[in-house]
């Protein structure tokens, strides 16, 4: 039962990543692209967690945590750059 | 004496808990190391925390968290319905202004975060003097009712907690 759920969920998340990549490629403005990147990070974390359940190991959680932290800092730095034209003031 | 050794009791508890969660096991060694970190980090970083808000009503904090968690779930289902079953250009999207009664910066930050996580609204900007919040609604028929709901549901509780 869990194996089937993991297969379906993996498919759904891959579709979500494709949709996000579409927005990343098309996105009329830079803010759209930053939003797409932020979403992409969250979807990657979801895939990592799903992999952790599928392989039955807790080893991947550090990777997921690091992804979450780096993703947040990246988004804020991008927005700061768009707001100010400068990251460190 | 107590204030010098334990400048931030809540921060001590938080650091210890986060360390135990990170180690992912509850053994004597981990708890002791966590406690050492929990005492050392607030002591070393005390100069960076000049002021801190007072929590007036601790029980309201629990009530507020439960209300927000429930609203996050409801808001997700509502937004999912809007995305799946409505055409994007038919949504009655608009900005509304929420005048603020709160004055503490921490309370305003918490209110802005709460608004973003709850039904169909994203907080977009703050007025330059910090007395009004710009909120973007995904689908609203009655802007005045949305503002009244935000003020009654979240701001009233935050005001009781912080001020």
């Amino acid at each position, binding site marked *: 039962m869990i194996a089937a759920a993991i297969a379906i969920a993996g498919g759904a998340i891959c579709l979500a990543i494709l949709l996000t990549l579409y927005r990343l490629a098309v996105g009329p403005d830079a803010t759209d692209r930053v939003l797409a990147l932020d979403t992409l990070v969250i979807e990657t974390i979801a895939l990592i967690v799903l992999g952790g359940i599928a392989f039955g190991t807790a080893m991947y959680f550090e990777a997921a945590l690091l992804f979450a932290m780096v993703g947040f800092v990246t*988004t804020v730095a991008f927005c700061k750059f768009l707001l100010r034209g400068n990251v460190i003031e | 004496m107590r204030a010098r050794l334990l400048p931030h009791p809540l921060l001590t508890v938080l650091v210890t808990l986060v360390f135990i969660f990170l180690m992912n096991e509850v053994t004597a060694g981990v708890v002791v190391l966590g406690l050492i970190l929990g005492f050392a980090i607030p002591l070393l970083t005390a100069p960076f925390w000049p002021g801190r808000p007072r929590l007036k009503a601790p029980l309201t904090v629990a009530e507020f968290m439960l209300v927000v968690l429930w609203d996050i779930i409801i808001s997700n289902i509502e937004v999912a319905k809007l995305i799946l079953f409505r055409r994007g250009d038919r949504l009655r999207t608009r900005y509304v202004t929420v005048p603020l009664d709160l004055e503490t910066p921490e309370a305003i930050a918490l209110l802005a975060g*709460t608004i973003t996580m709850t039904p169909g609204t994203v907080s977009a900007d703050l007025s330059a*003097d910090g007395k009004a919040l710009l909120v973007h609604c995904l689908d609203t028929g009655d802007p005045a009712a949305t503002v009244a709901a935000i003020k009654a549901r979240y701001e009233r509780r935050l005001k009781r907690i912080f001020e």
Partner: protein
Amino acid sequence: MHLLAEALVAALILIGAFFLFVGALGLARLPDMMRRLHGPTKATTLGIGALLIASMVYFAAVRGTFSIHELLITLFLFLTAPVSAHMLAKAHILRSGGRRDLPPTGTRTGWATLDDCKSDGT
């Protein structure tokens, strides 16, 4: 008991994947930037939250090992999602230059992103 836990884990995984998919769908098909912001900030946080709770239940009930790691990631994402959404909204307001779309503040000053002279613009 074992079966019940497995059903719960499977249901949570499917709920999480569903919300992640809906969030990405909103990002792809809604017409303008501020509307697109609603999908990813809300739908994906609940999606990832459900997945992480599924992982917690799975390791506790099916594998028999204790794991509270996931709570940290969930909490972190719930704290950071509003902040990045707020920053993106501010960047969008500044770049679109949409002063006429915004309602008046009702106070003596303007919105912080556009009226930069007084605030420190964080």
